[in-house]
């Protein structure tokens, strides 16, 4: 299988940081705040591989560092240390060695991001179609009718009524906003999609429809995805492999079924027991 992403020892510290930050935090100490210098260890030593067409789940409670890890990979934040290699069309990109322009180019052309809050992923001052156009225009598509037809196709694909493509996203329901966000993320046919709590806050039937859409995209386009969620149902449905995070550390990883049926760590056991 082709490897798409290789992440090694990714760490993110908020604050000055000191030499004992990593030694004095983590699940043994029940904290992610360094008692010496007060820095927050949002993520430490996160390593994983992602293969083509695979969905990797990252689960954990809020504040466990799952979103931080993804935001570092999407260049929303700079990591404190670690490296990540992205494999794309025979080329290798050392993500954190690229300059800002290269990072922006890669994030726009080859990655897609869907946030929990549509306000982060969409520009609410421009129409749904305009939001998709923005991503296409960034990648040098300069033909108006091409942009229109591509945006229409994407919205059809994500089951947004195309008659409403020229409306502002604020007129849409939460589920539709999320669909527009997914359409925008898919605009450039990305090979890697980050989904950060995409179904949180939506009602159950809409959640189910969005999850179906995500699975469909994965199966049809062989897009690799990283799904961040605290919802075990989402993990069970989508992810083939799963990382469990707590206090910025990966405390358990493996096949999703294995983790949900036979959790090894006390925390994971509690998590699974409480949810199922």
């Amino acid at each position, binding site marked *: 299988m082709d490897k798409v992403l290789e992440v090694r020892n990714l760490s993110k510290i908020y604050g000055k940081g000191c030499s004992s930050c990593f030694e004095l935090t983590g699940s043994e100490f029940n904290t992610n705040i360094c008692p010496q210098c007060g820095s927050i260890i949002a993520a430490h030593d996160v390593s994983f591989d992602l293969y083509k067409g695979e969905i990797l789940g990252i689960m954990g409670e809020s504040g466990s560092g799952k979103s931080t890890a993804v935001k570092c990979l999407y260049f929303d934040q700079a990591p404190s240390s670690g490296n990540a290699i992205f494999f794309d069309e025979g080329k290798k990109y050392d993500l954190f060695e690229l300059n800002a322009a290269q990072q922006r180019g890669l994030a726009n052309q080859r990655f897609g991001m869907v946030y929990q809050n549509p306000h982060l992923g969409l520009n609410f001052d421009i129409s749904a179609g305009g939001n998709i156009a923005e991503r296409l225009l960034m990648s040098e598509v300069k033909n*108006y009718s091409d942009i229109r037809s591509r945006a229409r196709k994407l919205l059809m694909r994500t089951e947004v009524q195309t008659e409403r493509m020229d409306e502002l996203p604020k007129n849409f329901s939460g589920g539709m906003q999320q669909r527009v966000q997914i359409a925008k993320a898919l605009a450039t046919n990305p090979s890697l999609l980050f989904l950060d709590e995409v179904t949180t806050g939506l009602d159950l039937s809409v959640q189910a429809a969005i999850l179906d859409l995500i699975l469909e995209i994965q199966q049809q386009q062989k897009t690799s995805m990283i799904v961040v969620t605290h919802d075990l149902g989402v993990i069970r449905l989508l992810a083939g492999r799963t990382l469990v995070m707590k206090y910025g550390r990966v405390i358990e990883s493996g096949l999703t079924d294995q983790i949900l049926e036979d959790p090894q760590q006390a925390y994971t056991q509690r998590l699974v027991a409480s949810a199922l």
Partner: protein
Amino acid sequence: MSVSTHFGFLDEYAKKEIRRTALKAVAIPGYQVPYSSREMPMGRGFGTGGLQLTLSLLGKGETLKVIDQGSDDSVNAVNLRSFIEMTCPGVDTTTRTDEADVIQSRHRIPEKDLREDQLLVLQVPYPDPLIIVEASENKRKVLHGEADYSRLLVKLYEDIVKFDEITISHRYPTRINDHYVIDPSPIPRWDVPKLHQSPALVLLGAGREKKIYAVPPYTKAEPLAFEDVPFRVEDFTGKNGKRRSCQRCGCTTSFLDEFSESKYGKKIYQCSDTDWCNEQMTKVSVLSDMENISGNIEAVEVISG
């Protein structure tokens, strides 16, 4: 009235700084070079940026033309001209485009093609075209640096969606030398193509925003547009399908202003560039004189023949 005896009002250090800024602006076409815009004896936003450029660049024996929306006699033009006349002894002023070495202008580029030895200074209220899509100057600088103008293009896209065409009437975002997009000052769309490969150097000065930028001679200047929705200039076709003409000189190739006739409120059109209009008038009268003369000669010949 006695004023500062210093030539060009500004002190030599200020003029030197502005010249160096202008040189940098020419070296990086379209890039907004910051400078320490000086206090002028007029409100910021009244053309202080253009005025400072003009004062720094004018020398004794040179000729200046100042226009405001195409007219030499508008308030802004008259005041700037008399200020420069007061502070720059030895500088001639003119209203004729082809006699001027330096032309300072607000909101228009002269109809007459400029020459290599001429210099156009435009007064700029808002130098950054990205301000409508990004409020933070730091972020705008990054966008300019990476030549990322997708958000401006999205504005154009939204315009076409809503109105079937791009509705920007003035300050049309224009890409210089394939990189920086500039706000070409509030010139109408009509004037934007004149920036492309212009033989004359075009300097743009924003006094309040403290920026100078340039379109150097013979440089590419492309208005932003889509491949299938090209940029177009104002259309002066009348209801009868014919191109409207200036009611004064009859010119059908110039940018026209629309007026309401005072008596019946009828719409009338007139050249926005007054010097151009006057020149067309003299041409017309010379021509009709010639016609009269040649007509007479023919008549004489007929008689004598």
